[in-house]
């Protein structure tokens, strides 16, 4: 009993350790984090310039534009999830370590979301204001991104693991991952649109929540499996 408890704590410690380590690495290389965030801001700001500053049009486009930009930004940051650990051999050590690999992967995914997903969520209201979204729509946008962006990181991790060390991996990962992101995109922007249309949006958020829990359970396993295939 005592041994098991100790073991359990040990696992928790590994999980926290890897999150702390990845966050520390991100803080040391702040520009990586900022690049993703600025990419998000720039993509969202390009749309008014291309379709014109007509506020009614922009307001209807806003949920879709912000969500597509979030998809692209989180996808763009995917190859950083494992590549530096792969290059310096850390990843190989993680694979042969006795720790549960899915748990380590989950830790890395969480760290990735904290570094790339969370800033997008926090930045989204500012961009929504640019598009003249009413305040309750802004609120729904933030909530939908808050539940949805972790799913993007979880599913994206599979793509990142499969394309590890391949030539043209960055473009390839988009081909693999973007079709799988479509349900999140539909219900994420759908929630905001429903709110703006005065319809109940709870169903949309519940579905994103369901995607979140399903991918939370399965994605780390599939990612761990993919890493073993890629490093075999």
């Amino acid at each position: 009993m005592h041994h098991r408890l100790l073991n359990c704590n040990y696992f928790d410690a590994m999980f926290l350790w890897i999150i702390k380590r990845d966050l520390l690495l991100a803080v040391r290389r702040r520009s990586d984090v900022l690049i993703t965030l600025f990419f998000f801001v720039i993509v969202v700001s390009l749309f008014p310039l291309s379709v014109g500053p007509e506020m009614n049009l922009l307001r209807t486009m806003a949920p879709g534009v912000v969500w597509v930009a979030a998809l692209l930004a989180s996808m763009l940051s995917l190859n950083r999830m494992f590549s530096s650990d792969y290059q310096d051999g850390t990843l190989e050590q993680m694979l042969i370590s006795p720790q549960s690999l899915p748990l380590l992967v989950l830790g890395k995914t969480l760290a990735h979301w904290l570094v790339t997903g969370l800033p997008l969520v926090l930045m989204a209201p500012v961009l929504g204001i640019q598009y003249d979204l009413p305040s309750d729509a802004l609120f729904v946008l933030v909530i939908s991104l808050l539940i949805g962006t972790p799913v993007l990181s979880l599913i994206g991790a599979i793509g990142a693991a499969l394309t590890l060390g391949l030539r043209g991996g960055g473009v390839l990962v988009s081909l693999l991952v973007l079709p799988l992101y479509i349900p999140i995109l539909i219900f994420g922007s759908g929630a905001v649109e429903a709110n703006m249309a005065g319809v109940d949006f709870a169903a949309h958020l519940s579905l994103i929540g369901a995607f979140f829990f399903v991918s939370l359970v399965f994605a780390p396993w599939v990612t761990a499996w993919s890493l073993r295939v890629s490093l075999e």
Partner: protein
Amino acid sequence: MAINWFKYSSPASFYSLAGKMIPLFAAAAVILLIMGLYIGFFIAPTDFQQGEAYRIIFIHVPAAWMSMFLYVVMACWAGFGLAFNTRLSSMMATAIAPTGAMFTFLALWTGSLWGKPMWGTWWVWDARLTSELILLFLYIGFMSLQAAIDDPRRADKAGAIIALVGVVNIPIIYFSVQWWNTLHQGASVSVNQAPAMASTMLMGMLIMVFASWMYSIAVILKRVRIIILERESHTTWVAELQKDGVA
């Protein structure tokens, strides 16, 4: 007498079996194709609503069905390859992908050709059309992942994982798109009302479906033979084939 079920899971023995089977399936494909097209274009009556334009269903519907079936079949083979570590299963999955993608493209293409006279537009963001388009993306993702990996064993396994993830996601994507569609779509066309079909039309269509199956099997076997030769080029049995001038 115990039957050796796994005899043909060896690429070497499957190679010759596939070689014998290809002409049979190819002949069946040609015969069924001629029958199906003849029924479709000459015997089946003109549709009272859609005129002659409906005749494209004899190509469109089989292509759409095949595109979906083949993805599932591909994922099954890929899954077998991953679970039992049989090389031939993975090769089958790799061989199926281009044919599946071809049928997906064909379904989209004939669909837009059909849509123009019927709905007055090449493309509508209908749930079925959109999911078919996403299916094409999934095929392309599978093929480009395998193409990017040089090591064949890694390519097999990575492809298998993405095919399985894709097959789990297809229903999710389909229902998401369908719901999105009902939320968005105002006064557009509905593709969901399948009109009652004359029995000759149905017959022609089913024959075309069988023709597509036979064609797919023949082409996939041909492709898997080429993949076997490519992967096994270092082995003695391939060298002997070359010496005999068979390959």
